[in-house]
């Protein structure tokens, strides 16, 4: 063998790896492919057409669900990011104090519980509150989403803060900057990529949620994922492929942006 002995290679590993990538991408690629099908079927190719994108675009149920999803995600991700930023500032760059571990556990708690358990817990409590108050708006879904978005927003912000140079703030204080000015002019600009990354994570997590929304929503409060879940039970047309394709495109865009933002060095 002219190539010599490579210590890093393992027989068959590359083959399995490439097969894994193929298996990960082929089903989704097929899904996207049939979104452009001219026929009714999601399995028989009958020529290229954008008709299903058009019909999805004109479907009022899809329109409403999309707007609802976007509103919920923007509001929930914004509240989650603001509160997570405050919590991150309060839990980093300090000697351990009483209650610090408690705060970590508390903030990360939504990650530890299976979604279905949180979902039924919220169903129990929110259905009671709906009866007591008579209010059955989007507030419940937004509250639920905010809670499970907080740990996701918290992670990148905390990571950014921990990598921050403490002397910068001290320098600002030495130069007689009041605490708020020091925060606004020094801390915030450095923290900004972390906050943006946190917001985008929270946004994607909220946009993607199926299980908790399915249990918390009132009648007529379909989000895009719960609408899709409902459609899967019925007969499937390429319209659902078209919706998935657009959804997928948005997710990939956000994840790519997140990838680059979180990679930016301080």
């Amino acid at each position, binding site marked *: 063998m002219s190539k010599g*002995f490579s*210590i*890093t*290679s*393992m027989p*068959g*590993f*590359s083959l399995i*790896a490439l097969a*894994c990538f193929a298996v*990960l991408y082929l*089903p*989704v690629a*097929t*899904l996207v492919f*049939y979104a452009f099908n001219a026929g009714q*079927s999601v*399995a028989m190719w009958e020529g290229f057409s954008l008709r299903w994108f058009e019909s999805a675009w004109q479907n009022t149920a899809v329109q409403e669900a999309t707007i609802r999803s976007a509103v919920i995600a923007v509001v929930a991700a914004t509240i989650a990011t*603001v*509160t997570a930023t*405050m*919590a991150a500032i*309060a839990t980093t760059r300090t000697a351990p*104090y009483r209650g610090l571990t408690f*705060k970590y556990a*508390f*903030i990360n*708690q*939504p990650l*530890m*519980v*299976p979604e*279905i*358990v*949180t979902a*039924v*817990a*919220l*169903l*129990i*409590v929110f259905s009671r509150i709906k009866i007591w108050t008579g209010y059955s708006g989007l507030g419940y879904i937004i*509250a*639920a989403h*905010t*809670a499970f978005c*907080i740990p996701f927003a918290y992670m990148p912000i905390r990571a950014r803060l921990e990598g921050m140079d403490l002397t910068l703030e001290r320098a600002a204080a030495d130069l007689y900057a009041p605490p708020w000015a020091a925060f606004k002019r020094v801390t915030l600009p450095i923290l900004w990529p972390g906050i943006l990354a946190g917001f985008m994570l929270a946004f994607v997590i909220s946009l*993607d949620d*199926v*299980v908790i929304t399915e249990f918390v929503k009132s009648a007529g409060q379909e989000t895009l*994922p719960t609408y899709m879940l409902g459609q*899967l039970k019925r007969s499937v047309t390429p319209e*659902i492929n078209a919706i*998935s394709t657009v*959804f*997928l495109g948005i*997710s*990939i865009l*956000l*994840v790519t942006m997140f*990838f680059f933002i979180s990679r930016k060095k301080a």
Partner: protein
Amino acid sequence: MGVAQQAADRAERDQIRKRWLLSSPALIIIFFAAIGPLAVVVLYSFMVKGDYGDVKYWQFSLDGWFNVVAERDMFDDTLGLAWANISIFWRSLKLSFITTIITLFFGFPTAYFIATRKPDKRDLWLFLITIPFWTNILIRTFAMQEVIRNEGIINSALMGLGLVDQPVQIMFTDWAILFGMVYVYLPLMVLPLYASLEKLDFRLVEAGYDLYANRFQVLWRVIIPLVKPGIVAGCILVFIPSLGAYVIPRVLGGGKNMMLGNLIDLQFGQGRNWPLGSALSITLMIIVTLALLVYVRNTAKGGGNGHV
């Protein structure tokens, strides 16, 4: 105690009070929309079931917990095991376990492959794993459904090749759930494995070869022991969501092949047995917490921290 010391103490107390104030909005939201409701679930599991769902308030009973594993015969009131529930528990544990093994088998070579690429190429491969990870679970489940349906890719290929005359029924079987879970949770296995493998010191691998170990021995005696924390992390990160899976068995398993998540859903829907549903939820949570404890102890012992 000097005046200066007192002043310093007061400043520190002020500082801590400010920190509590600053973190309180996040803590309050999580309390009201996550932790508090969980406490209510515990309470509900000990109440008497209502006639049309919900519970009869402040009437306590152990029936919810009792019904997890046992049931009274409708006609002669004799006690028996609730085989329907037990078989769903068994299916959940079995499928989650098999999913973990399969994703480990395929995920390890994949993570190894990424970790042994040139440093500038690794990010791209890693990104290719991250994309499916962030793709909506419904889209991925739906994509898998398209593959395994009777008119789907697998069956079309098998029939086209003349291997079978009739489509093989995969949808609405345990196999469908298994395919779906492996497909959806594979990235969760690869990411922590990669985090461990990336830190692997290949000089140790080289030393193994110098000492006349063959490839299998190096893999089994050198690499695997070194990345064990990553393996444990990956297994637990796959096992936990598998056990609580709801969407995948609902879409791919149909009404009959339920897993724990669907059984819980059933009790809050048609079953109208909220105490039983609550007791099942707490049971699921206890199993998950035990698995998480293994994970925490494992990461505390050094490394294996997931990429997610």
